[in-house]
């Protein structure tokens, strides 16, 4: 198979792309569907990029929506920044939203994108109409894609390891490889996703340098980390979440998953929220079951 002509059944690149400056950081924005249709915001998870919605977003677009997504700072084709934080991601999300419209719009967010945009919804309830969270509901476990906001137990080795990483972060580059090697590397984070899909993702989330393919994500970003944040804080606010909420959970535990289960969430959920658990899915529910998830979301937004 030629490296340039990787396709995936049902995957469709965005109909439009544009760039937005969020406070000086260039953010790559993507849209699927009729520009005149009702807008919907779609947020990817940590260490992902909007192209991971190439299978899922077209289903929402074909359901009558203008689907707007973006690469978070440091991810995909957005600028690599000097600083990253949850607050900065919130501001970037709001900036993208501002370019779409000021009428309330629905948000669909996966993983960390769900967490960030739920907080955006709490901070700007007048801007959001409904919220669909794809396996990004807060849980009691650590969140592997939330870099600096997890874990309160500090260990010397963790702290020193993080500082040692910071000390060399400015000199790091992603390791080059063949298309198949990059697909295999990503497969360690996405063990349930097919090799064909991962190969397809490489052609979007990586660039081809003279010495091989390299993932575009900022090499100074790192899994793990530490910080003062704890999931209980978001959970305690959940009962008062200001807009109708659909939460889809993938119950099969895997590396990138948050491990949130419906019985754990139940005491925190607003009375009219709907929680749907997929027993047969890992963390990437919208990639494993795009049609099922899209139908649930479209029904919820109808």
């Amino acid at each position, binding site marked *: 198979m030629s490296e340039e002509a990787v396709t995936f059944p049902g995957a469709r690149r965005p109909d439009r792309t544009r760039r937005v400056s*969020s*406070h*000086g*950081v260039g953010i790559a924005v993507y849209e699927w569907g009729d520009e005149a249709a009702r807008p919907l915001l779609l947020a990817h998870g940590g260490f992902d990029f909007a192209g991971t919605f190439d299978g899922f977003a077209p289903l929402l677009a074909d359901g009558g929506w203008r689907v707007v997504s973006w690469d978070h*700072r440091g991810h995909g084709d957005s*600028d*690599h*920044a*000097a*600083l*990253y*934080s949850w*607050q*900065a991601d*919130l*501001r*970037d999300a*709001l900036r993208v939203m501002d370019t779409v419209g000021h009428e309330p719009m629905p948000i669909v967010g996966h993983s960390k994108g769900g967490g960030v945009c739920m*907080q*955006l919804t*709490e*901070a*700007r309830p007048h801007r959001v109409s409904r919220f669909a969270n794809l396996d990004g509901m807060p849980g009691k476990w650590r969140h592997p894609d939330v870099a*600096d906001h997890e874990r*309160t*137990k*500090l260990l*010397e080795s963790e*702290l*020193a390891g*993080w*500082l040692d990483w*910071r*000390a060399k*972060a*400015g000199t790091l580059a992603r390791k080059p490889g063949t298309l198949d090697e990059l697909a295999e590397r990503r497969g360690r984070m996405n063990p349930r996703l097919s090799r064909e899909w991962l190969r397809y993702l490489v052609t979007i989330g990586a660039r081809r340098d003279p010495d091989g393919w390299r993932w575009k994500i900022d090499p*100074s970003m790192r899994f793990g*980390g*530490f*910080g*003062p*944040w*704890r999931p209980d*804080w978001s959970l305690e*606010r959940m009962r008062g979440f200001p807009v109708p909420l659909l939460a889809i959970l993938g119950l099969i535990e895997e590396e990138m998953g948050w491990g949130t289960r419906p019985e754990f969430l139940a005491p925190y959920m607003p009375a009219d929220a709907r929680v749907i658990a997929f027993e047969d899915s890992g963390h990437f529910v919208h990639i494993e079951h795009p049609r099922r998830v899209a139908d649930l979301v479209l029904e919820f937004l109808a």
Partner: protein
Amino acid sequence: MSANRVLRVKHNRVDLAVHELRGGDGPALLLLHGLGERAPEQVPKDVERWPGRIFALDFTGHGESTIPAGGGYTAEILMGDVDAALARIGAATLVGRGLGAYVALMTAGARPKLVRGAVLRDGPGLAGGSARPGTPLVPMPDLNAVAPPDPYALVELAVDVRPPDYATSFVRQATHLSGLERPITVQTLERPDWLRAVVEEPGVEVGELDAALDAYAAQSRGARR
């Protein structure tokens, strides 16, 4: 621009300015400013008694250090700033004002062998946000502000959450791993929740600056002999 020698230190994509306020020999003292401040241009009177070299760091977005695009500040990143400075100047005693006091405490816990005592003093940004998050908000800077200081730093580091048990975990690491009897000295009138918890920990001295500087300098000299 100050007339002092300025060491340029790289922290990821940021160039930090470390001002050498006093050269020569002897143990190093590193001053950390408060939120929105910058390194002093000369040795402040209250640390003149220090018997060795004296440096002052401009945090990211402050003084002569880089102002990055689009914010994203955390106290943890500023701890990385201090670590980068220590990698250049070597082990040092830290004296932090306000935000710099909180960052000094974190660094003392994260690099217990490099930080030879930390003195926490009053100054801008000592409290931070609160012990737990308030109502969610999207911190927006004053876009008309003239930088430095970076307006994103001013707004983001004024609302960062500082849980008391998070702060004390740094104290415990400093106490267990530094080899110093009292690695943290608190000399503040203001006592936000995190600092109230810190002063209750073993290994934390509530005392005066002069005595703390003398003790830390003596311990540093002892360690060098």
